[in-house]
């Protein structure tokens, strides 16, 4: 089975890119889709209705959605394989930008809108730097010069990423992406790990203490200024 993990901030066009992938590859492979989100998601219903593929969604609720993704990915891959899937597409919630959901196998795709701001790619860290492919969407909304400035900015930061531009509503120029997916090797199930390191998540905020200020917290804490090492972990 091939695996594609699509990440990126909300409203950049992840689902539109996925719809183009499904629409173009569904005649040659059986596709399954998983959406990970926090409180509400409609993408699974949309894709099922529009293309008749099997879909699933998971709400992370109070848990970080990328942590939730790690938790459920084993089961999800088994579910897709039990359904004889050839291509499994996972869409992440894309909320916080501290880590990236890509695995050491399969294809990691980050979707970035060309109107998201010129500094957006450098603020996104791992979600861009660990991706195999960056798809820049909404290119019909900006000038050629600005598109090229945006692309140059991503290239400066990540010289080896495969860059492509599209108007995802029409699927412009995405043939290259379909070919990359066709050529991507099958995943090896007992060798799957996250590509990047997830951030530490063991602090008292994680478990529900809401007081403001590091003085009120234990575990991983951080001051605004000064020596963070002294306080990086504070036991009771």
């Amino acid at each position, binding site marked *: 089975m091939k695996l594609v993990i699509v990440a990126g901030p909300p409203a950049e066009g992840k689902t539109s890119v996925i719809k183009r992938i499904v629409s173009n590859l569904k005649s040659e492979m059986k596709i399954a889709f998983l959406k990970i989100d926090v409180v509400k998601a409609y993408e699974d219903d949309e894709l099922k209705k529009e293309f008749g593929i099997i879909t699933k969604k998971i709400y992370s609720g109070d848990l970080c959605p990328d942590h939730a993704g790690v938790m459920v990915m084993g089961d999800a891959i088994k579910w897709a394989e039990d359904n004889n899937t050839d291509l499994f597409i996972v869409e992440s919630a894309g909320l916080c930008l501290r880590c990236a959901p890509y695995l050491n196998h399969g294809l990691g795709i980050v979707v970035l809108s*060309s*109107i998201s*701001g*010129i*500094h957006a790619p450098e603020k996104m860290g791992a979600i861009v730097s660990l991706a195999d492919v960056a798809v820049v969407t909404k290119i*019909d*909304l*900006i*000038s*050629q*010069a*600005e598109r*090229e*400035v*945006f*692309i*140059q*900015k991503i290239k400066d930061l990540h010289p080896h990423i495969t*860059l*492509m531009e599209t108007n995802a509503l*029409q*699927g*412009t*120029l*995405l*043939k*290259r992406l379909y070919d990359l997916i066709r050529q991507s090797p099958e995943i090896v199930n007992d060798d799957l790990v996250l590509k990047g390191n997830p951030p530490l998540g063991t602090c008292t905020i994680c478990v529900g203490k809401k007081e403001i200020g590091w003085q009120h917290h234990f575990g991983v804490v951080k001051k605004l200024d000064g020596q963070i090492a002294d306080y990086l972990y504070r036991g009771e």
Partner: protein
Amino acid sequence: MIHNITILPGTNKTGKAENFDSLTLQAGETISIVGPTGSGKTALITDIELLAQGDTSTKRYILINDKAPDDEVRYDPTQKPIAMITQNTKCFADLSTKEFLKIHARARGISGADVISQTIDLANVFTGEKISSASKVTTLSGGQTRSLLIADAILIGASPIILLDEIENAGIFKKDVIDMINGKGKIIVFVTHDPVIALSTQKRLILENGGVKKVLEQNEGELHAANELLEIDRRIGIIRDHLRAGNIITRDLANLHAISTFH
């Protein structure tokens, strides 16, 4: 060297094949694309800009020197032989004009210390209100943005093929732009609703319902009509200048057959 580009037909909005076999533009040729709004004019120049290979919604193919372009030519802006001026009147990048042009020059592989200031100077020839190099591109007016993008396309895009989308709407000095671009051996494609521009080009494509309906060649009579229209256009320009300067428009001034100059 670009000797020509060729457009191979795709399909219109209803999936019907377009009404031409293939269309080749030679270096130095000008062409206009006309048709009602929504007829697919912008989609056609976008196909040229993206060097479509059946992978856009129209399914057209664009050839350069009779061959499909290599991937590098399609995806690497330093190799792209095409500069396009779209209808965008807004930049979203949080950069100063100077920074914006610097990054674009790097993207296009253009060096030379003066190119940035030359581009701003040229933009200021086209626009009424001057642009400073420190202005954020996000704060430029619609006309300033288009002037800057046109100057950028000429000096930093510096391409043998130039695509212009409704340049007449820019509220800038149209004639200056056309004179600047014309006669340099470039292929120039105008999307336009302006009769002067449409009649001034050697070829004319008529679009309808997302597809090319007709291809026309310029003839003697039309060239004559274009020159007459150009004179009317010049006089309307004079009235516009008077209006902008806050002058009262007299009956004499408004008489397009009378001789008058702006002073």
